[in-house]
């Protein structure tokens, strides 16, 4: 049993992976002022990549807002004209004046409508185009960031970043910048017009503006922060539901429905309380804003009425003030949304740009050349590796070489670093010391594309894309002909199964498609890797779910295929790699035993101990189960 001590304490790759992981993006709650400002400027620069549309939008906004300011004036004038104030009594002149005003008003309204349309449309268009560019940039970055980045950052956070945060940035132009222009014109020019007409009434008409602006901003910021909390609580709730429905058999098996309902009720109540609280915040704000607006209107009516009675202003002028207030009301109430847009854009933008600015830690060297495979000689030269942030190295002093046609088996306890070896060859991670060469070319000095085309890794947990089986197999070479896809499936012992399906090779698999068993998924992954005809083919514990008989047939079928490439088999099942030309036993990141199966058995070390445990003839098998 001495051979078994190595696995203790039980530590899997999965646990160490989780420990490595940090949360770097979600927790930038609010950016600092300076950073926020530079983020906003960067968003402005991004929108300025569409200078014409930005110009059209801003000019339209100016014109539309100015035209809107004319409407109260025209209405006021019409009222005065109707009273004959301006024409000194009724008569054709007065009628004519009314017609004039009416037509002007009609034209102004139509133009205002058209310019508002232009403002809104181009405002949105600029946002959508900026969003389009950001989405592409984001997608490209995500696809190129190395494995260590993806180990570190949760996929859920990345998705949030690419959807919600990106939206926050995209909307900044129309909900932030344009509103500034609009409000600037309406309040600035409007205030000038009103105050120059009548100082007291002008100030009274505007009196609600500061209050409403302040209330609305404060409320929006409060709603924003509670929104984030609400989202968290809702995600707790959906996790409870999702887990319950996914694990319904366990729930039933333990008769735990009541317990689950309690869990649900707690999560539900948390979300509900906050939602109700938010309704409260929102509503008290709306009614307060309404009230202050109407109160200001009452004041204008009272003082304006006095002035009319005193003969200082006309009824038309009073009506002009009142209508002006109704026009100003909406944009001022939306001021809070503008403030919110600024806050959102600066935090979202800071996060998004942080990602877009992340340096690629694995990319082509400046003078990288394409890998040229001649003999197909893979060499590890004293390779050491340490995961970023990890205390001790995962691999050290790994040296071996393999020629084309050879098979190398790598075996070892969980967490020994055997999978890491597989990940170093296609440069999913870069070695910390030493070098890996293929036909004498250091893999860190060749182009990534040529390297990864030459190295195929059949991964442990196969990701299937939601598309046809055919497209999945041809994933690395989507131009491939059907015959080659069939060939790869035959090698992987999957062809017979596929043609038995009603839709054959066009059967959709993946998350939303037909479900495949673990073994079938792994076989599909094998077929997928064969499509690239790599010079180095690595099986990273990728046959665990395939039964031994099928595995043997795969091996037999691939014999011819394996002739002109290096094959690396990483497994904890000895039967998968006993036949290898050389077997490396890895433990604690070092190769502790190496040789052929027979040599290692003869050695009587760890390999031997593992062999005894797994494949000892049955009669000696310890009976470990049962009450007998």
């Amino acid at each position, binding site marked *: 049993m001495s051979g078994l001590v190595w696995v203790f304490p039980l530590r899997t790759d999965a646990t160490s992976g989780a420990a490595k992981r940090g949360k770097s993006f979600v927790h930038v709650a609010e950016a600092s002022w300076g950073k926020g400002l530079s983020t906003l400027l960067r968003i402005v620069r991004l929108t300025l990549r569409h200078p014409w549309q930005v110009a059209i939008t801003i000019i339209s906004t100016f014109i539309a807002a100015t035209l809107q300011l004319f409407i109260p004036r025209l209405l006021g004038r019409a009222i005065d004209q109707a009273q004959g104030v301006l024409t000194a009594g009724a008569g054709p002149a007065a009628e004519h004046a009314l017609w004039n005003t009416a037509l002007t008003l009609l034209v102004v309204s139509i133009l205002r409508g058209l310019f*508002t349309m232009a403002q*809104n449309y181009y405002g949105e268009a600029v946002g959508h185009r900026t969003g389009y560019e950001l989405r592409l940039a984001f997608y490209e970055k995500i696809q190129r960031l190395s494995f260590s980045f993806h180990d570190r950052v949760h996929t859920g956070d990345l998705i949030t970043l690419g959807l919600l945060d990106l939206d926050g940035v995209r909307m900044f132009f129309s909900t932030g910048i344009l509103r500034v222009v609009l409000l600037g014109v309406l309040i600035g020019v409007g205030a000038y017009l009103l105050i120059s007409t009548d100082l007291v009434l002008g100030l009274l008409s505007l009196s609600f503006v500061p209050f409403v602006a302040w209330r609305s901003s404060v409320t929006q910021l409060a709603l924003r922060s509670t929104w984030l909390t609400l989202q968290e609580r809702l995600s707790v709730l*959906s996790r409870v539901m999702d887990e319950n429905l996914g*694990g319904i058999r366990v729930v039933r098996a333990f008769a735990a429905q009541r317990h689950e309902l309690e869990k649900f009720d707690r999560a539900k109540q948390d979300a509900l309380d906050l939602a109700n609280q938010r309704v409260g915040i929102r509503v008290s704000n709306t009614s307060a804003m309404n009230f202050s607006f109407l109160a200001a209107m009452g004041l204008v009516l009272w003082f304006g*009425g006095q002035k009319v009675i005193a003969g200082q202003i006309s009824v038309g002028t009073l009506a002009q003030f009142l209508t002006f207030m109704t026009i100003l009301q909406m944009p001022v109430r939306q001021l809070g949304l503008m403030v919110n847009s600024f806050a959102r854009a600066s935090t979202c933008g800071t996060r998004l740009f942080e990602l877009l600015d992340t340096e690629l830690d694995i990319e082509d060297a400046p003078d990288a050349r394409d890998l040229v495979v001649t003999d197909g000689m893979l060499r590890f030269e004293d390779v050491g590796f340490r995961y970023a942030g990890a205390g001790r190295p995962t691999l050290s002093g790994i040296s071996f070489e393999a020629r084309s046609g050879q098979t190398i088996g790598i075996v070892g306890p969980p967490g020994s670093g055997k999978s890491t070896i597989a990940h170093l060859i296609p440069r999913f991670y870069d070695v910390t010391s030493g070098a890996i060469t293929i036909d004498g070319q250091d893999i860190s000095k060749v182009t990534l594309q040529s390297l990864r085309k030459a190295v195929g890794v059949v991964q442990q947990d196969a990701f299937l894309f939601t598309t046809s089986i055919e497209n999945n197999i041809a994933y690395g070479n989507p131009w491939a002909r059907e015959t080659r896809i069939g060939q790869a499936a035959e090698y992987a012992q999957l062809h017979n199964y596929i043609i038995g399906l009603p839709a054959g090779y066009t059967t959709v698999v993946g998350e*939303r498609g037909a479900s495949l068993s673990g073994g079938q998924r792994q076989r599909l992954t094998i077929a997928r890797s064969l499509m690239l005809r790599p010079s180095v083919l690595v099986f990273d514990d990728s046959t665990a779910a395939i039964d031994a008989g099928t595995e043997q047939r795969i091996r037999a079928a691939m014999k011819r295929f394996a002739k002109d490439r290096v094959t690396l088999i990483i497994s904890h099942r000895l039967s998968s790699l006993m036949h290898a030309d050389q077997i490396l036993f890895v433990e604690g990141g070092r190769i502790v035993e190496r040789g052929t199966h027979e040599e290692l058995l003869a050695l009587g070390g760890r390999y031997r101990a593992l062999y005894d445990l797994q494949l000892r003839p049955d009669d000696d098998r310890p009976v*470990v189960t049962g009450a007998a």
Partner: protein
Amino acid sequence: MSTHSGDEKEDTSGRPTKAVVGSHRDEEEVFGKAYDPRIVRRIWNFVKPYRGRIYISVAAVLVFTLTQLAIPLVIRYAIDHGMAAGRLDRSVMIWATGAFATIILINYGASYVQESVVGKVAENVLSDLRRAMFSHLQRVSLSFMDKTEVGRLMSRLQGDVNSMQEFLETSVMSVGDIVLLFGIVSVLLWLDFRLGLLTLSTMPVLFIVRLFWLPRAKVAFMAAHETNSIANGALAEGIHGVRTVQSLERQHVNFDLYDEKVLANLNVHLRSARYAQVMVPIVDTLTGFAMATVIVVGGSMVLSHSLDVGIMVAFLFYIQRFFDPIRSLTMQYSVMQRAMASGQRISEVLDVPVDVSDKDNAVKLSRDMDGTVEFRNVTFGYRQNLPVLKNVSFRVNPGETVALVGPTGSGKSSSMALVHRFYDVWSGQVLVGGHDVRDLTQDSLGEQVAMVLQEPFLFSGTVLENIRYHKTGANREEVVRAALAVGAHDFIENLPDGYDTELEQRGGNLSLGQRQLISFARALVADAKILVLDEATASIDSYTEMLIQKALIKLLEGRTGLVIAHRLATIRGADRIIVLQNGEIVESGNHEQLMAIKGLYARLYNMNYASFDDISEEEMGMDAAVGKAT
């Protein structure tokens, strides 16, 4: 396959023929009938408990709308009776301002009551609806759950419930809109019938325009929504599959494909923006037209003293609010259609029959029962005329361990599910402790029958919470004792926070073997008399495997065990082995007996694999044929 050779090169310059990014699921029906009394009644049942508050808020909406209608009238009164030439009167101004102040106070109160009551009721109804669905799903038959994608259920619990909330909130508002609309119309006609009629003539124009516009716009809006989810799906896939993408060097291909999707999304959005914005100048033109009419016609009337100037001012005020209710009411129509479609789907969930439920006179299975499990002539299946178990009879005595063995599809898992009454048998009986499971309460049955499933499912929460999942009252010592017994204690202690380590979703931060051990500890804490266990098939590293084997002994100690066994060691350790094939018991006995009769079991055994699952179906088939031949 002679066409294939190493030299053959595909043309990789063109568009890849076999590549897509992202997937697209057919969206569920978004719009239903605008009004379906059945669904409305159903939803009303959920609103009913809050009907008092609904009445209050409808009353508040009415009051609020009336105050809005009244404001221009007060202004009109002030102008005509206090300021108009020749009628200057300060006392009128005091009255008018007083009235104005009163109205805005009422307005303030009404708006507060209306919005907060509606908002909160909607939140509560939504929450109740969700709970009703969720708790119903806890009771519906597993055959429904087997058939239904979790994602689909989740979208009902979330999306559909949310669109009901939107509906509830806006329906109360639309009461206000309708009142406002009719209010404005009547006030205008009342103030001056002729001018009112003239001004209102623009209103039908907007109605007609909206009727033409709405269906087309809706298509554009829907398309925007749909391409959004397509593009987002492609992004999510790119993130989830990034390791595969990189290892197969698909970045360039994917980028181009993604670009196409995002570009399509952009264009659709621009189109829907055009649809949305084209209404702006139309409404503005109509408003301008109505105002111009008032100025020309009303103005002349004022000039000829047949109309008070205050009325003209009031008209101008009303016109500015004129089109709002029409706009929101036409929108409300789509909201209703969407709500009906959602309501339909919600009802579907609520209507799923509960076919396994306690009898009225169901008895509790007591802890003192003997622990036998017996199948008497059980026939059972999932689809009609396709029985999975055919007339199966066997008995497991107290304390005995029976291994169920057989190829995939032989009915092992179904037998296991029947012990726990996940389903009801077609004919025959399943007895636990001498009682037909249909006569027992499901809760008490669940307490005495512990189950360990093949795929150990862990919930998010700490390790501790997971182990005492069944017995939330269990204290830490009990949990530790169970973990020690199954050999899980050591690795749990090595986790960052020991027993208080938070598990990631579905225990993602643990290996399969570790999850298995935790699920054993969970079953041990449950301390049931009968254990039903489905052994994991996937290969686990040798050391954990040993721990699991040891834990099994511990787990079965003093319990009746029914084990779906995959590993030879487990099978050989059982007291009795039952071999199933095609839903029938073909052999039964202990290892030696079964080997002696040289039947299916002996053949499986002699293939000499470490586990029966190493034997592929094809080999089984081959072998069966050979077996028949000999």
